């Protein structure tokens, strides 16, 4: 985690001698033929040692930041008569743009500066001091580890680009670094913001102009002390230096090279022809792990054209067939950086990938068999080399899910659960997003899943309400953490709508699985539906007071004969009869007044009938409490409305008479629940129909008392008689 590559300090010599030319000439006056006559071409330009050092170190950083956007930090130091520290270890300072701006401010070395006061030593001392400074990552790790904070190591690397005088000069630089480390470690021991250096790698790169003999010899890595190792590279400026730093960045950060071959690309000059190109990419070497393990590396690899030192693995471009979204079995994904970032083939490839296409890569094999081993794909503007699993799976030929537990069930609510998954999709929240209860977004996601699944039948035949379109608005809302008044209203409308359906005896999608014949009777169906709806809402009743109100609404509106047990004992005889009545009612709906009054008569009779029966069971705990109101209901029903406005029953029944056309709406319920002394709810029927706000006109009548009489003055009222409270 905190290896040597966590911190890299670049020290670039800015002394007058670095202004010397590299003597690598670049022709930048490329005259076109037509104009070349009579024009003397400009002299070629040549970079200074400084320019060579800067552009190669920037290239090192570019590759580093592409492959490791975090965790691998660079501190850039320029040294002449003083030290210029161009950035800090902070993550926000880790980009080439900032460094380029700072370098521009420093400018090229001044050849007229007094060479006596200039030295790269200032920079090396500053680099050691800088390595002692704690990074954000080290700080964070130390804070989280607390008592084992000493596990957080402090290691680093100094890459020094300079022009040394001799091997003795090099030794002097090394000694200086070693002494400074010892000194700084003493200082660091007593500080919170500093850490002693445990291990430091010094990489000295001696740069000399082309055509000159080097005064400094190459030297392999050597341990100077337990803390410091040092290596010396003596390199000619120009492309030699560039390829040296390219090799170093690969060594330092465990990178490897892959060359994508056979990339078809349109020719610039001849747009209708296409040639095949190669593009070399760098990435973490683990992307080649499979080749290393299988010993295929040498077979697949070929030597890169540009440098004799490094190897590259060649993978063949497979033209993508479709844009299909597929989940590949991928064992690793590594960020890439093109070696030659602004060459045309490179930018063609990267732009293709950045536009959202993925490319599968084929590993050439001796046998000629085709093995797709990698995939290039971009995510959020970053390109990754995905390693696809090409070895044999240990999970071959597993049993199908249909052969296991629950595999024989055929009516899973697949579509509904799909909808559920869409509703529970995740999205990223900013780091500061923690809610009032101190929960992180992921905790909120879990608690949402908990709420959404409090009542969630898995199969179609286990549920009625979730098979009903009419319940959807309520079912979607009730699971929410908070409800608005409007939401409550929507839920209430849903309930009223169900009441309406029940009134009209609309068929319900009740499963007939497991039951003989046609399944339960209509009113039994509604009872099942109401029970289920209540179960759903009860599961959420504790969430808020508004959720509670939804349950109240259901309890108030629903039909639920409390004597159902008793009725079962009495057999199905009456139910059949009732059912017929119901059907008749429906059939004759349009026949109007006469039929209705006839039916009303029948209802009254039956009601009396049931009354006597209910007296028999009055001791039962299930028997409705306000029995004493029942006779009044029956007898007073036909009285004129003017008489007793204060009495709930009086106030209701006038409407029965006044709006005879709506009797139809009331009677079936009267018939079905004759024992109910409670008229639970009524509402403005017209408003509901028009989908206007109903709230103010809703009234609840409990135990025979109207609790909200606001609609007295209002228009047509339909009564619905419903279950016990």
């Amino acid at each position, binding site marked *: 985690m905190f290896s040597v590559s966590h911190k890299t300090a670049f020290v670039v010599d800015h002394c007058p001698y670095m202004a010397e030319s590299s003597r690598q000439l670049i022709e930048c006056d490329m005259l076109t033929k037509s104009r070349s006559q009579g024009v003397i071409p400009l002299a070629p330009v040549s970079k*200074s040692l400084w320019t060579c050092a800067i*552009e190669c170190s920037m290239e090192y950083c570019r590759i580093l930041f592409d492959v490791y956007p975090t965790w691998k930090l660079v501190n850039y130091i320029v040294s002449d008569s003083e030290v210029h520290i161009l950035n800090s270890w902070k993550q926000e300072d880790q980009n080439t743009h900032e460094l380029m701006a700072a370098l521009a401010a420093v400018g090229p070395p001044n050849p007229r500066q007094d060479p006596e006061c200039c030295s790269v030593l200032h920079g090396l001392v500053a680099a050691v001091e800088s390595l002692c400074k704690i990074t954000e990552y080290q700080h964070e790790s130390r804070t989280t580890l607390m008592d084992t904070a000493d596990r957080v190591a402090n290691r680093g690397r100094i890459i020094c680009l300079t022009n040394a005088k001799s091997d003795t000069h090099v030794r002097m630089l090394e000694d200086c670094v070693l002494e400074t480390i010892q000194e700084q470690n003493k200082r660091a021991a007593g500080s919170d913001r500093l850490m002693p250096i445990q291990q430091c790698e010094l990489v000295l790169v001696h740069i000399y102009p082309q055509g000159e003999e080097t005064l400094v010899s190459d030297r392999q890595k050597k341990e100077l002390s337990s803390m410091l190792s040092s290596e010396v590279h003596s390199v000619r400026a120009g492309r030699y230096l560039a390829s040296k730093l390219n090799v170093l960045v690969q060594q330092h950060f465990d990178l490897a090279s892959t060359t994508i071959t056979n990339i078809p690309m349109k020719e610039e000059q001849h747009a209708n022809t296409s040639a095949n190109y190669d593009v070399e990419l760098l990435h973490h070497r683990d992307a080649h792990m499979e080749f290393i393990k299988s010993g295929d590396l040498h077979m697949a690899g070929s030597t890169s054209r540009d440098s004799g030192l490094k190897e590259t693995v060649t993978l063949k471009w497979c033209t993508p067939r479709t844009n299909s*979204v597929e*989940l590949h079995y991928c064992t690793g994904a590594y960020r890439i950086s*093109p070696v030659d970032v602004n060459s045309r083939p490179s930018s063609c490839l990267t732009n293709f990938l*950045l536009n959202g296409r993925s490319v599968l890569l084929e590993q050439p094999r001796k046998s000629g068999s085709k093995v797709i081993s990698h995939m290039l794909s971009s995510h959020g503007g970053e390109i990754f080399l995905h390693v696809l699993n090409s070895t044999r799976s240990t999970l071959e030929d597993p049993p199908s899910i249909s052969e296991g537990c*629950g595999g024989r069930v055929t009516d899973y609510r697949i579509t509904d659960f799909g909808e559920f998954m869409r509703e529970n999709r995740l999205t*990223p*929240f900013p780091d500061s997003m923690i809610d009032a209860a101190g929960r992180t977004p992921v905790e909120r996601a879990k608690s*949402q899943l908990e709420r959404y699944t409090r009542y969630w039948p898995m199969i179609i035949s286990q549920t009625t309400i979730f098979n009903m379109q009419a319940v959807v608005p309520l079912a979607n809302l009730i699971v929410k953490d908070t409800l608005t008044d409007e939401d409550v209203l929507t839920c209430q409308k849903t309930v009223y709508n169900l009441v309406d359906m029940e009134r009209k005896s609309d068929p319900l999608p009740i499963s007939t699985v497991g039951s003989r014949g046609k399944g339960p009777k209509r009113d039994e169906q509604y009872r099942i539906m109401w029970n289920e709806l209540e179960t759903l809402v009860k599961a959420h009743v504790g969430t808020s007071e508004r959720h509670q109100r939804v349950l109240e609404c259901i309890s108030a509106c629903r039909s639920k004969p409390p004597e159902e047990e008793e009725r079962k004992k009495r057999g199905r005889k009456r139910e059949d009869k009732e059912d017929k009545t119901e059907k008749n009612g429906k059939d004759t709906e349009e026949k109007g007044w006469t039929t209705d009054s006839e039916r009303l008569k029948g209802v009254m009779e039956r009601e009396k009938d049931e009354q006597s029966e209910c007296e028999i069971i009055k001791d039962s705990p299930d028997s409705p409490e306000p029995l004493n109101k029942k006779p009044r209901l029956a007898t007073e029903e036909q009285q004129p409305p003017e008489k007793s406005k204060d009495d709930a029953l009086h106030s209701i029944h006038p409407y029965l008479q006044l709006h005879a056309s709506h009797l139809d709406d009331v009677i079936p319920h009267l018939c079905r629940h004759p024992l109910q002394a409670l008229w639970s709810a009524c509402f403005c029927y017209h408003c509901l129909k028009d989908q206007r706000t109903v709230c103010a006109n809703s009234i609840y009548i409990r135990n025979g008392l109207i609790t909200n009489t606001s609609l007295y003055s209002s228009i047509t009222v339909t009564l619905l008689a419903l279950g016990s409270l």
Partner: protein
Amino acid sequence: MPTVVLLDSSLSMTRPVSVEGSEEFQRKNLAVHGLTMLFEHMATNYRLEFTSLVAFSSLWELLVPFSRDYNTLQVVLVTDGALGIGRGSLRHSLQTVKQRVDDKKFPLPFPFPSKLYVMCIANAEELQATDSMDNLEQLINLNGGEGQIYTMEGPLCLKSVQSMFGKLIDQAYSPFHAVLRCGNLTSDVQVFPRPEPVTIDEEVDPIPKTVQTDLEIVGFIEIGDISSPPVLSRHLVLPIAVSKEGDEIGTGATDDTEEETSTNQMAGKSPNFCVLLHGSLKVEGMVALVQLGPDWFGMLYSQADSKKKSNLMMSLFDPGSEPLPWLGRMSQLGPASDAAENPYGEDDSKSPFPIQPKHKRSYAQNVTVWIKASGLQTDVQKILRNAKKLPEKTQTFYKELNRLRKAALAFGFWELLKSVAELLERECTLLPDSAHPDAAFQLSHAAQQLKLASSGDSKYAVFEQNITPMLTDFSGGGGADRI
């Protein structure tokens, strides 16, 4: 992990074991007894394990082969610890391990992640009396410490061989049972193969992380958004029926005995959350993110083996707070419904993924690299090409000019600025008579500005300051605004 069982069938394995009374056993019989126990255990509780059996003495014979190679293995070596003598014996091989040539390397460490279990049909005292134990330990060390040596406790008999293999089974072949949860919807499952503990950072956090037995779904993501993420391992998630006593009835995938079949049929007919989840994941093309432990996540998805067969599969991400850069920190993923605006759009046309990093990568931001001469030449050519098409290409001309200027300033390459200035001046003199008068003005203005910058004068060499087109009567003053 597939298993290779290596059974020592050398002569020493036929040594009799003294058992009081009853019939006489050879060590080989004990080994076979132990292996039978192991295979029976696998057949009932670890069915999907691939196993191969090799018998060896001085030579070896593959009795039951794998048909191909795998990338990980468990090796169970059953031996009496009599190492043999002379060339080819383990003792000799270990002594000469460093003298071997490349093409005859010692087989350990295996070139793939592996565990080596040595089952000794001998007790520890017996092995320690000679150097057998040391040699066997050396084998484990050669395998990077991956593995373990088991010895028999007490007398060599069926009971102690059973207890020894029992330990191996507990260690390496106990099925991983867990509860898969999505809020209140749950299913008992077996995760196969067993997820092994993972250590990511040996130095700072050396404690291996284990997958918890409560697998909690935290939410859902489209396959396109999760986008072939890298995973540590893949596992089948098989629903299991748990009887009242808490014993596993089976994965329902077998049809051995009639009794079992009927139990399985029952289990097959009662709805199971795994099947529901699998079906919807498959239909919707989504994955479920599942929490495996603190700061450790994985994903559940439908994996099709063939057109007919598909299964619920779980892949484990690297432990840590941000295993997939394009999803961001896992703890910051919350319900989309909590967002002020639906991040997926009202018509599902958008997605909050992938997360865009703060800084663009080099290949996405038109960086300037002049390491190869051709890079520099191309950039100069671009400027000249646009220079010839002034004033139409004023914008691109200055854009390319400024890009070159910035890089030259950063690289301290003032010589280039001077050269390009000269090139532009020459372009100016070469302008045909038909050229727009503005072209000459812009060219000499640009050349002058480059020269000023190349002088290092702090007024003209500011990195962030661009050269703006000259305002001429011809350009109508619009040029500067458009930059």
